[in-house]
């Protein structure tokens, strides 16, 4: 077993960060375990929170730096590790950096949020790091065992994170919704995996591929079980990326969760889950017999998702819910690129491009909501945003950038992403699908532009609430970085295209 630890340097340093965070918090004065029962914030808890925030923030930056520097050496050739369970090196480097980057942006957003909301910071960041670790291994996994484990490792901490909100009368409701439905979808995923395993006797994705290419089309019962297995896997993963009709948890959970958690879920979790979908359905399983099935499956569910997501977003009063439906619709666009199946690396690249760009867009949109939130004054509804441009011109400006990008208008990165996806459709001769999708992205403009209209052109009914501008730097870092990312890569997209292409090559 030749095992070079350099290939997993990112994961190792993240584990080290988790251990340090755990032990440092444990070394403090013992606290009563059920923190939720006491509402007052003592100075001790506050200093504890501050300490955890610093450790998590700086630690994750160090992890990113370590991976950026040492992991670079691995970005050439990729290797299989731990008996074909993880594929490290190569283009995954890009994906892992993107995920870690999303994690850092989330922590920057959380720093002030956790303080203001007096969320137990150590628990919060621990869970976030666990989820991040799961996402990191998930995009590198090439074994169904590893895929399942990483998926759960990514999701379970988020079930708990969703429940970690203080000033909300409905706390816990969204957490239990996510948990129960997540369990249901995991069961489907596992059932699918077990069918595949039953037919092939292996859990390694690439071996399954080899086996599939040998399957003769005449053996219908085998086809049946394999096909059922793949469909169930599709169901399980479609839940994670929230395609309609597996989406129903999304708005409720996004609304209920703390805003930084929502942003993390909507970008990192979605991107990682999409990486797995690409790995299984577009990258590896090039089984021509299943091509028409999954082509239609993706086209059908993606269209359903786009239509539903964009329509329901129109009637939302709550910005977080609106963004949740928008994130559903965006998952639809990404899945749409997979409709022309076949051995198409450009489609994979388009999806990854969109996914990475989407990190910046959503971080920006949710970041503005975090910026405008203080203690029990949430900024969630359209009324809260009405007329803020006068008082907070910076926040309104970056929010407009986010809306432009989400709406797919130039010169933002969302425009380039959409162009690539539609080009895929047109190359694959999916004209009707493309037209419908385009029509509904016009519909989507309505509610994105509406936010800008509300911010700039409406007079606020009540006076715009004051926010405490103390320790706002981390939020501004996130906002500034995301804005630059969106605009620069919107105008000059080719580096991101190269990165996503490199990552796409890994998924084949």
């Amino acid at each position, binding site marked *: 077993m030749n095992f070079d630890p350099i290939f997993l340097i990112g994961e190792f340093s993240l584990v080290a960060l988790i251990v340090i965070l755990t032990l440092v918090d444990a070394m403090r004065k013992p606290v009563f375990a059920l923190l939720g029962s006491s509402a007052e914030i003592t100075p001790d808890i506050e200093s504890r929170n501050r300490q955890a925030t610093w450790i998590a923030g700086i630690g994750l930056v160090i992890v990113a730096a370590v991976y950026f520097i040492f992991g670079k050496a691995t970005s050439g050739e990729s290797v299989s590790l731990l008996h074909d369970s993880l594929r490290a090196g190569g283009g995954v480097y890009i994906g892992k950096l993107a995920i870690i980057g999303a994690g850092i942006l989330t922590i920057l957003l959380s720093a002030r949020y956790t303080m203001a909301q007096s969320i137990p910071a150590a628990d919060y960041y621990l869970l976030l790091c666990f989820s991040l670790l799961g996402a990191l291994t998930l995009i590198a996994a090439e074994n169904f065992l590893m895929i399942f484990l990483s998926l759960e490792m990514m999701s379970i901490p988020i079930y708990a994170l969703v429940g970690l909100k203080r000033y909300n009368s409905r706390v816990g409701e969204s957490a*239990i*919704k996510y948990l*129960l*439905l997540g369990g*249901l*979808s995991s069961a*489907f995923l596992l059932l699918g995996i077990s069918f595949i395993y039953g037919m092939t006797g292996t859990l390694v994705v690439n071996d399954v591929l080899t086996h599939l290419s040998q399957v003769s089309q005449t053996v219908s019962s085998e*086809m049946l079980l394999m*096909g*059922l297995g793949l*469909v*169930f896997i*599709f*169901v399980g993963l*479609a*839940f994670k990326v929230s395609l*309609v*009709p*597996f989406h*129903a*948890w999304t*708005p*409720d959970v996004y609304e209920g969760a703390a805003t930084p958690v929502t942003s993390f879920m909507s970008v990192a979790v979605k991107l990682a889950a999409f990486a797995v979908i690409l790995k299984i359905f577009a990258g590896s399983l090039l089984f021509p017999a299943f091509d*028409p*099935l999954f082509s*239609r*499956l993706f086209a*059908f*569910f993606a269209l359903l998702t786009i239509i*539903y997501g964009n*329509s*329901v977003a*129109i*009637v*939302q009063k709550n910005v977080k819910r609106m963004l949740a439906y928008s994130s559903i619709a965006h998952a639809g666009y990404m899945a749409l690129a997979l409709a022309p199946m076949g051995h198409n690396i*450009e489609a994979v690249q388009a999806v990854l491009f969109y996914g990475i760009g989407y990190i910046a867009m959503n971080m920006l949109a949710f970041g503005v909501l975090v910026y405008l939130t203080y203690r029990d004054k949430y900024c969630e509804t359209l009324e809260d945003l009405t007329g803020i441009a006068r008082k907070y011109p910076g926040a309104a400006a970056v929010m407009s950038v986010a809306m432009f990008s989400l709406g797919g208008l130039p010169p933002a990165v969302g425009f*380039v992403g959409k*162009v*690539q996806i539609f*080009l895929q459709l047109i*190359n694959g001769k999916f004209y009707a699908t493309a037209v419908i999708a385009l029509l509904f992205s016009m*519909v989507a403009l*309505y509610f994105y532009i509406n936010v800008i209209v509300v911010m700039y052109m409406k007079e606020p009914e009540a006076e715009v609430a004051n926010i405490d501008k103390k320790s706002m730097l981390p939020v501004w870092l996130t906002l500034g970085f995301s804005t630059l990312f969106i605009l620069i890569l919107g105008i*000059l*997209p*080719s580096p991101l*295209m190269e990165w996503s292409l490199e990552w796409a090559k890994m998924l084949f």
Partner: protein
Amino acid sequence: MESSLILLIIILPLIGAFLNGTVAATNAYRKKEIWGEKFAGILAFSAVGSSFLLSLYAVFVKMSGIDSLSFTPYEWLSVGGLQLNLSFVIDHLSAVMLLVVTGVSSVIHFYSIGYIHGDESSVRYFSYLNLFVFAMLLLILGDSMPVMFVGWEGVGLCSYLLIGFWYKEEEKAIAGKKAFIVNRIGDFGFLLGMFLIFANVGSLTISEVNEFFHHNNSMTFFWTNVAGICLFIGATGKSAQIPLYVWLPDAMAGPTPVSALIHAATMVTAGVYMLCRFHGLYLAAPVALNVVLWIGALTAIFSATIAIYQNDIKKVLAYSTVSQLGFMFMAAGAGAFVIAIFHLMTHAFFKACLFLGSGSVIHAMGGEQDIRFMGGLKKYMPTTYITFLLATLAIAGIPPFAGFFSKDEILWNVFASDHGSKIVWAIGAIAALCTAFYMFRLVYLTFFGKFRGTPEQEHHLHESPSTMTAPLIILGVLSLIGGWIGIPKLLSGGLIPNFFHHYLEPAVSKYGHVELHHYSHSVEYSLMILSVVIAVIGWFTASRLFREVKKELPDPARYSGIPKLLWNKYFVDEIYDKLIVNPIKFLATKVFLNISDKKLIDGAANGSARGWRQVSQVFSYLQTGNIQAYGIYIIFGAALAVALAFYIY
């Protein structure tokens, strides 16, 4: 090395614009100055100046013996069959343009330091000016149509910003809007042409497009001409030709250096330049070329006649610019692209000089622009007078000034070329006559005779500071000698080679050139002498009429007959208002707004929006909040997927 050179040339003005722009924004926001106009001016000037020096280095050192330098710093987009590169090229054509633009810009930036002195938003002014140079460089050096288009739009934007620079005066803001809207109409044509070319050629790189039309033109004759005309529509917008010239006279509302730089020397010539860049296309599209020729000629005569009766010093120059641009298009239409560029260059020198001179005059007159109230300024501002006179001699076509060589060659080419025509030649000759007449009318009314303004103004008259006169001298000298690089072989008896022709030949004759009919030398000589005679006639008439103005000049309101027609610019604005603007307004307000928009479209849009909102509402009822309902959706979805699988197999 070469690549970073090109990049530096382009990026330096952008950096200047960015720095000044940020400071202008913070100045306005914080209500305190980080740096004032002096520093801003020097910064802007040094950015453009160093860009000019680098261009000189690139053109004369780096490019000696080489046809072109090209540089692709960035692959912009590469999706499917579409490959867009951010690529730049300096060939001999763009080299000339590059030197003209950066050179004239440097001079005008320098002039602006004195001119804009004391304005509260001078930092903003310099930021815009630098941004304009950046956009212009993109337009010139871009090797692919999208890059060119970005520059094309960029200069339009800067022009809009600068015309409306004093936006607090409503009339100027309206002039800016007019320029922008008229330009947008032209841009639409440009875009249409671009799409047509991409659809047929499959590439947007200019050299590839030319190559395509030169070698294996698989586009039908009809569509080739349509594409050419579409691009030319873009050019008429930017270069102020019939029918889209109406914005340029109004654009004189902007600061005078801006008029000199953007609305005389550089931006308005972009259309001519673009035509020359696409000469491969135009040579394959004779009909389009003929359209260019005729539109150019008509514009030339049309605006030259208007200029005769104008009394606003800048308006005269504006119509003169339109007319000279018409000459350039005539040259291009006759297939003499080299001559078009030659005239472009000489025109840049003398017209910039004229505008800056007029700026100097206006400065001295305390904002007065009406030449009826000037006169006798010669003795108050000698430098301005002399340089203005030099430039006037150049534009009138008196040898050996720059304008003579270029204008004469244009007329000769129109006369002799396959694509030309004798009628157009005649029109051009008359336009040249008018040009000489109205220019000397301007000179005599402004600088000769008695001062006709108020005593107060007379007391105030002074020569402009040296920051303003130095550029005048440079440009004045250039209008004298600028034409000597293109002396026709015939005139020097073949002793001096036509350096300019020789230099541009590889760039604009690569894809074929137009043959001239063979005429004897005597014909050519006589035409040349004829054009000198024409110019002198114009001069003489003007001198007889306006040298010593005794009586009060008539009030334009009391004009009648032809003067009335010309004073009112052939009533084109009014005709446009009546025929296009008013009907559109009427349609917009009365018909569309009241009837169709409020009833039909609003009804339909609101109705469909409302209808769709209903659907959305129904959709959102599915979101019951009940976990088990959600679970049922998942099961339902899974069943749907399985059913789909069975259905397909």
